[in-house]
């Protein structure tokens, strides 16, 4: 019996759709797709680091687990870095009591420490300023341009990476508020 062209093509379409359904079934991920490793990408644990601050303290990122953290890599010669700092200070003042922390990592390996110190003093920045003297965090977070802002949730996983700037204050506050409302 000769199969007509339309019948053949319709049967082929049905076969394609059936195979598609099979693929959907086989590629389910019932246990989720959570990533356990640390990597600089949304959904992964933020790579840990430990650095000395301007005031001589040592702060480790992992010690802030349970808080919403903004890791911001910056340098004093970088205009967008300088432009967004006042907004960061206002947000830090408003949200720190709700469990928000900022780690402003100065890429000291490519900056002048005195200039960075002067900038912090001029703008009365009260959040921790960490000094990346060896460039380890700059390299760990694959910084190719400054500033780089990394939003980390209470579970230590990266929620968003924003390269470049300056970040506008409304976006900053929107992101912080969204993360603060997440269940710990």
């Amino acid at each position, binding site marked *: 019996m000769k199969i007509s062209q339309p019948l053949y093509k319709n049967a082929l379409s049905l076969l394609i*759709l059936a195979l598609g359904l099979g693929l959907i079934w086989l*590629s*389910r*991920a019932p246990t989720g797709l959570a990533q356990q*490793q640390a990597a600089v990408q949304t959904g992964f644990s933020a790579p840990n680091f430990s650095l000395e601050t301007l005031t001589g303290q040592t702060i480790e990122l992992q010690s802030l687990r349970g808080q919403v953290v903004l890791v911001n890599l910056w340098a004093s010669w970088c205009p967008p870095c300088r432009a967004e700092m006042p907004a960061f200070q206002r947000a830090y003042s408003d949200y720190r009591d709700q469990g928000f922390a900022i780690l402003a990592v100065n890429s000291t390996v490519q900056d002048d420490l005195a200039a960075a110190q002067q900038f912090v003093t001029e703008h009365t920045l009260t959040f921790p300023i960490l000094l990346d003297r060896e460039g380890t965090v700059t390299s760990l977070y694959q910084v*190719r341009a400054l500033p780089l802002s990394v939003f980390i949730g209470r579970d230590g996983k990266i929620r968003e990476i924003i390269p470049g700037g300056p970040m506008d204050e*409304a976006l900053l*506050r929107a*992101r912080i508020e969204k993360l603060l409302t997440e269940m710990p």
Partner: protein
Amino acid sequence: MLPILQIGPLALQAPGLAILFSLWLGLTAAEKFAPRRGIHPETLANLVLVALFSGLVGARLAFAAQNSAAYLASPLSLLSPNASALDAFSGIAAALIIGIIYAQRKNLPLWPTLDALTPLFATLAIGIALANAASGAAYGMETDLPWGISLFEAKRHPTQLYHFGLTVLTLLWLAVKSKDSTLLPGSLFWQLVALISASILLVESLRADSPLLPGGFRALQIVAWLALALALWVLRPKSN
């Protein structure tokens, strides 16, 4: 991954560049193709620009509405170039609605217009694949295959490149098919929908960051299957 392109003192965001370039290239191709579908190229270009602008404005306004307190305190942020401050779904909806209204006012016929836009849609799909490759988004599951790439502390399927390859093949198929003068209006558009949906259906199964539904079903696969089913139904040959 190449999120930033350093050209002298300029640090350009590669994903954004990929999208912009594909939009420009796709629109140029669509304008050249439009007369073959009886559409005036300038009208088509205006339609695209109006839809794009509406989409951007809609996306920003929707994001601001969802975060009204932040924007009331800092209204100038509405004009910020930050691409993160956009609501994608609202933007697409706004672009579609305003685009349809504009097309109706210009008396543009639906199916020939969609056919004329297929080069833009296909090129944009390629741009999205390249943008994902640049940013590392839509990354693949771990694999031992020899062509696996080292990404995020593991050897993974190069899903962005799979997607890129399939979308390039789609564009080539459409380029060949577009020379067929016997094609019914809308046929080219629905072939594009079928091919892009099929490629999403395939590539999503290898993604490690797919949005999931209850039961672990991959949301984009479901949407792609439905779109594929609709396209195949529209394209079905009718018996005499």
